[in-house]
């Protein structure tokens, strides 16, 4: 019944009292939002807390919901604000260091092509993927968030900018730095 509906339509339906619409929306985004949080705070306990808070914020904000942007942008904007609060509460100055580290912009061109999908290399690729996650978690907070918004949220640069409260160029720069760093890390691993 709700399968063909857009995220925004589902949220509007939930605003009007359709609890099943919320469940459909939740199923669509639960995993991606959870991983987005988990990769950033590095703790399952914190991720659980943030995850629940964000969804409850959306539940409580349903009456005032209007389609001013994509649902995912709205949701990740809430997540972004909640993460800032979390970092402040944890005393993590790292979040403040939203430095864009513009030192390795040329690495994108140097990144080797992806390995061939050979069965014997699947285990190796799995291990490589886990290493990638570790490098993602080691990124500066702003770059990490931008990369995860791009990967988990599948947001455009404009949407990332809207979700994180920066302009498009800043978002673009952060994403570029993040991708270059990860490619460099992977190059070292190979």
């Amino acid at each position: 019944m709700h399968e063909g509906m857009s995220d925004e339509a589902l949220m509007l339906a939930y605003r009007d009292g359709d609890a099943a619409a919320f469940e459909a929306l939740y199923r669509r985004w639960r995993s991606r939002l959870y991983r987005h949080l988990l990769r950033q705070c590095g703790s399952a306990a914190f991720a659980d807390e943030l995850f629940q808070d964000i969804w409850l914020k959306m539940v409580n904000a349903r009456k005032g919901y209007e389609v001013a942007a994509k649902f995912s942008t709205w949701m990740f904007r809430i997540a972004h604000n909640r993460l800032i609060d979390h970092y402040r509460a944890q005393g993590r100055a790292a979040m403040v260091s939203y430095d864009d580290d513009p030192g390795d912009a040329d690495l994108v061109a140097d990144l080797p092509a992806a390995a061939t999908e050979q069965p014997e290399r699947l285990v190796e690729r799995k291990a490589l993927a886990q290493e990638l996650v570790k490098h993602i978690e080691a990124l500066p907070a702003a770059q990490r968030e931008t990369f995860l918004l791009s990967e988990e949220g599948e947001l455009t640069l404009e949407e990332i900018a809207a979700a994180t409260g920066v302009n498009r160029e800043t978002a673009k720069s952060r994403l570029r730095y993040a991708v270059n760093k990860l490619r460099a890390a992977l190059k070292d691993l190979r």
Partner: protein
Amino acid sequence: MNEDFRDEQLSRLYREADRIEPPRALDAAILAAAREAVKPAPPRRAWWQAWTLPMGVAATVVLTVTLTLMVQQEQERPMSEAPPTQGAPATAPQEKPDAAADLAGKPAAPREAKQEAVKREAEGPAVAPAPAPETAAPAGAVASRAPMAESAKSVAPARPAAVMRQQAAPAADAVESRAKSAPLRKEAVGAAPAQWLEDIREMKKQGKEKEAAEALAEFRKAYPDYRLPEDLRQ
């Protein structure tokens, strides 16, 4: 979508990492909260519906108390407000007991008085005219005969007031005088005319002719219209 900077190979590798899912308990808690938030509130009852139960209880209590007080008053009325029962026989000795009771105020006449009157009627012609109220009146009611006679007037509007006064007053006087006479008379005053005559008859049997004559005279004074039995007429 981020075509310039998004590396498909990097994205593919990232998706090969563990696809961590949120705990099921967290899912359940969030979905329950979401459902609860849009759960329709139960319809509010009108204010008068909220007061239905208390008002019903209050009405029941008031009704119960009122009925209880009314029943108590009804039970006390024959004791304190009994209509005169002594004056009526003096004026209507030849009438049936029920008629006498009607004159004295039928609504207030005790049911026992009627039963006694029926019983006396069955005993024979000598006691047939005995007025019912006389049998039912307690001895203690003698002193209040006169007021009761007044009460009889008020409850028997069909008879002229003057007639009622004439009938009630002599009877009350006679009873008063009897109450002041010998112990036997006092006892007799409290008794029914039939009983009184029976006592006189008993005195005669015991040879107390003088006392019997006095009691008979007293009886005649109290009930001048009462038809005496044959054995007591000499």
